[in-house]
Every structure is written in structure tokens, then in C-alpha cells.
């Protein structure tokens, strides 16, 4: 895995924009490219369009329309009934607030913990630095699914502090809490790697200057490096947010109380003996739209930040 760590050390700060790079593309080619892009847009958008459109139709019509282009058109018996049905069936707002809280906290803590670790790894000099970095990056290869069972057993052995009325009680086991959905996902090797990459592109002379002014390392982290790392922070925020928001298997295993469940788990509520597919589509739309709106709102800085956060390797 050292390949990951070796390559980037010499990376320069992101170069200035190079939009003047090429002569405008010739006309026929530009038409061709546009056609290709439009076809691709259809390919990328149609499945999601199918979801939104189906969420407006009664179940029987979804299946009747599925064999032709009507599947993509809001025609026939269109209504918001499915959405009303969703609210009857699941406590949607509660799930939504849980998901927002869980992903929000994981993102904030994740940014802090991982950037601090990356700072320690990239700016300070100490023995065993390279070994620790390699070890952290090696953990990238472990997919969560294979760890879920041992982790379940393990978090159930961990001590926990809970509020019981006005008393703090020590209990054992993290099952059925918010923390079990947050704390295991704060530290993330990929995030550390992204910060490490980005920090490596910020000139070290800045540190020296700050130290001349009497700043400690945490101050340098706080006041020099982090303010320059906007793109990396945004990238890590997004890449932490998505998997937590979309988490499915883990909350199913560890959360029993309805009040603690996140939105993705809610989709299970619709798979009864008679699956209400219209409501499934409505619910899927409702949990996808917040992310899409968030994404569309920030898309420019979002994509820019991924692009410039040092992922370039």
C-alpha cells in the first residue's frame, strides 16, 4: 500500500486555472460531443426519473406503465397519495432528524480527528511516522461488511455512560444507542489520507514562520493549515456524509428502538406481504431528494473540492 503514500510527497499546490489551454473545438466535433453528452445525460437520469415519476402513481399503474415510456411520464392517475401514505406508515421526521444528527456529528468529529491525525503525520517529524502512516492506509482495504459481526459482538462489550433521569449510570454495551452509529465511523483512513495529501501541498515555510512568531503546533494546525484546507475539508465532509446517510446494514443490526433509526432503515417498513411499491418509490425519493438538493446547492464547490483536494495523487 506504500504506493499510495510514496507518490504524492512531491505534489505541488494546486496550479492556477488553465482555462486558456486549448483553441475552441471545431464545430462538427462540438456537435458530436454535445450529442454524446446528451445521450449520457439520459442514461444517467432516467432511472432516477423513473423513481420520482412512479412515486406519484398508484401501485397497479406503476406495474402497468413499466413496460413502456409512460414509466418516465407523470401521466394517468397522478397524486401525492403515496407521500401521504409514507407519513402514515413511518415516523419520517424522526428518522430524518436522526440521520441529520448522526451524519452531522460524524462529519464534524471526523473532520477534526482525521485532520489532526493527518497534521501530526505530515507536519511533525517523529520516529515511526512512516510506519504509522502505512498502517493507517493499509486499513483502507478492509470492507465494513466483513467486520460487522465481530464488531457487533465487540461494541456490545464496551462500557457506556447513559443518562437515567438525572443520574449518570455506567452500563455495558452500545447496542441501541446513537453513539454506536457515530463513534466507530469517526476515524477513517481515507479521510486521513486525503488530509495528508492536501497538507503535503501546503508549503512548510508557513510552519516555520508561525513558529518564529511563537505559535505552537496546534495553533499552526488551527490558524495556518486548516484555514488553507477548505477544499480538503469539504471533500472529507462529503465523503463521510454519504456512507453514513446511506448506511443500511449496520443500523439494522445495532438499533432496535424506532426513535433511534436513521432514514435508510425506514425503507424496510414498506416491504410487507403486499409491498406498497408506490410508497417505496415515494420514500426512496424523499430520502434521495435532501441529498440531491444538498448536492445541487453545493455542487460547484463540491466537485471542485474533490478535484482539488489532492485526490489527484
Amino acid at each position: 500500500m506504500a504506493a499510495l503514500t510514496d507518490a504524492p510527497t512531491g505534489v505541488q499546490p494546486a496550479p492556477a486555472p488553465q482555462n486558456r489551454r486549448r483553441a475552441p473545438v471545431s464545430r462538427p466535433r462540438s456537435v458530436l460531443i454535445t450529442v454524446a453528452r446528451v445521450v449520457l445525460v439520459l442514461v444517467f437520469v432516467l432511472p432516477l426519473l423513473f423513481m420520482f415519476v412512479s412515486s406519484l402513481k398508484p401501485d397497479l399503474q406503476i406495474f402497468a406503465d413499466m413496460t413502456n415510456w409512460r414509466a418516465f411520464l407523470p401521466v394517468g392517475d397522478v397524486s401525492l397519495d403515496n407521500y401521504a401514505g409514507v407519513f402514515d406508515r413511518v415516523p419520517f421526521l424522526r428518522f430524518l432528524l436522526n440521520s441529520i444528527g448522526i451524519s452531522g456529528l460524524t462529519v464534524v468529529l471526523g473532520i477534526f480527528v482525521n485532520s489532526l491525525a493527518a497534521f501530526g503525520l505530515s507536519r511533525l517529524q517523529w520516529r515511526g511516522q512512516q510506519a504509522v502512516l502505512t498502517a493507517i492506509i493499509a486499513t483502507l482495504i478492509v470492507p465494513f461488511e466483513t467486520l460487522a459481526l465481530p464488531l457487533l459482538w465487540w461494541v456490545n462489550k464496551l462500557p457506556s455512560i447513559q443518562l437515567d433521569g438525572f443520574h449518570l449510570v455506567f452500563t455495558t454495551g452500545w447496542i441501541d444507542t446513537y453513539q454506536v452509529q457515530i463513534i466507530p465511523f469517526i476515524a477513517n483512513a481515507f479521510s486521513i489520507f486525503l488530509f495528508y495529501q492536501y497538507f503535503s501541498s501546503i508549503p512548510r515555510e508557513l510552519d516555520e514562520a508561525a513558529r518564529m512568531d511563537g505559535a505552537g503546533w496546534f495553533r499552526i494546525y488551527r490558524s495556518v493549515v486548516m484555514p488553507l484546507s477548505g477544499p480538503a475539508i469539504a471533500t472529507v465532509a462529503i465523503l463521510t456524509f454519504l456512507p453514513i446517510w446511506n448506511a443500511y446494514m449496520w443500523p439494522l443490526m445495532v438499533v432496535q428502538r424506532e426513535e433511534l433509526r436513521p432514514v435508510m432503515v425506514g425503507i424496510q417498513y414498506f416491504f410487507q406481504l403486499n409491498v406498497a411499491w408506490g410508497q417505496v418509490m415515494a420514500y426512496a425519493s424523499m430520502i434521495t431528494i435532501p441529498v440531491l438538493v444538498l448536492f445541487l446547492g453545493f455542487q460547484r464547490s463540491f466537485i471542485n473540492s474533490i478535484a482539488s483536494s489532492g485526490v489527484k495523487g
Partner: protein
Amino acid sequence: MVSTTPLAPGNEPAALTTTRRKSARPFAGGQRRPTSARSRESRTAAWMVGPAGILLFLFLVVPVVLAFILAFTNARLISPRPAEFIGFDNFTNLFTDSVFWASLRNNVVFALVIVPVQAGFGLVLALLVNAKVRGTNFFRTVYFVPVVTSIVVISLLWKFLYQLDGLLNQMLVRVTFGHFTPIDWLNNPSTALPAIMVMSVWQGVGFHMIIWLAGLQTIPADLYEAGDLDGASGWQRFRYITWPGLRATRTFILITITISALSLFSQISVMTQGGPLDSTTTLVFMAVRSGYKQLATGYASAISLIFFVLVLTVAAIQRFLTREKV
């Protein structure tokens, strides 16, 4: 919308200007850190790396170690009988299990196809989006939309599209004027895995497009200008300027796609449950099925252990290959 202006964010040049101004101050570089400062630096580093290190240890290393131990026991998720060490029994059972070999084969095939296809298609998209045509921002956004959508939702949707009387078949029949015989994509052993590959590329390619774009932005414009002066064709420009300029990006993309391809699970779980006839089962899926549905924790851990070894091997090979070209 029109701008092809690339991806360096606006705030950065300004920030860098400030830094340059600061760093221009004279100072006496390397001599400023005697040994005591060194050890203080070590302490600070421990304090900074500590939280992440402890968390990774608790929630990653410990479960991995547990999986290693459990792999040699007959532990079950629920059972009145205590777990016993049974040596290599789980592994010998595994090696005679035809589902295991099918899973391994599917993992390898999936990765061998997905890595070049997704990387290549991502590059094509990046080049398309990078070309100077109207609406770049819009297209870039659209291609990225599947990345932010939940894989569970996407798998449900595509299951509908892949049905025998689903839209994909209907469309193919129209396009070929009826010459195409509809295929039950997900229930045909020869098309199920390819169908899942197509969907996976669709879902993941936007992310890698962005990474390629980032790589493209780092190639100095002068090189292209020089190429234009020499009258280089589009292909030559790509072959001799773009491609070599993307070396570091290639390594990064190769490794991230490989790891995610080998971990294939959600799509299988929602769409095919490993079938038909084991044509889509994977190691991770098999581990989850044994561990959770059949409650055989020990057996599942053995599968996970083999999976770790597989990924480590692949990573080592890739490291060796990418090293060579340096």
C-alpha cells in the same frame, strides 16, 4: 454554465498569495530544532494522531483480530453450546464448497472487468466534460448524481429496469425493430453478473470522472500549446501529453476501484442473492449469508479472513506493478 474553468477553487490563489508573503520572511531554517524540541514534537504528534489511532484500533483492528480468532472456531451467532477451537476445519470445508470457488471466480471476474471499464469510461467522461462546450457544469453534475444516491435505492430501481418485460428489454426491442429477443437479465447465469457490472459502473463512474478531471487540471497548459505548435493531432496530444501526465492519478484510481470492486456486496444482496446458479455470489456476500442468515459466525469469519488475504495480495501486486514504472 459556460465556463470550462477548471476546478481550482477561487479562494485558493488568494490564500497562496498570503502564504507566499509570509514565507518570504527570512528565518534560519533547519537549525532551530534541538533534541528537546524533537521529543516535544513527538509528544505533540502522539497527542494528535492518538485519537484517530485509538478509534481505528478499537473499531477496525480489534474486529479484524476477532475475525482471525473466530475463523478457527465453530462459534455461532446464537447457540447454547460454547464455541470450540476446531483448527482448520472451516477452511477445509470452505475449500470443498463449490459456492466458495464460484464466489472467488466472480470476485476476480468482476474486478478484472470493472477496473479497466470504470476507469476508462470515467476518463472518457472526464475528457467529454473537459472539452470546451456549453453546459459543462450541468453535465458534470448529472454524471455525478448516481454517486450521491444510495446503492440500495439504485439496486431496487435497476431491478425493475432489468425485468423480462422491463424497460431495458423494451428499449432494445424498439431500437432493433423487433430483432432483439428480451432477456431476463438478472435471472440468466450468463447475463446476471454483466448486468450488475453495468449498473455498478453507472453508479460509480461519476466519482472517478471527477478524479480524472482533477488529474487533467494538473497538466500544464504550455504542454498543449507546444503540442499545437507542433501540429499534434487529437490522439497524439492524448497519447503523448495527457496520458503521461495522468500517471499519479492512474495509480490512485486503480487502487480505489480495485478495493471497491472486490468488496462487491450491496448490489448482490438487493438484486440477486448470489443467484442464479451462483453466477453472482461474492466472498463478502457469502460471508454475510453464512454469518447472519445461517448464524455460522466461525465459518463466516474464515471467509472474511480469506478475503483479507485476497485483497492484500492484489494490493501487493498492484504496488509492485505501479512501482516498476516509476
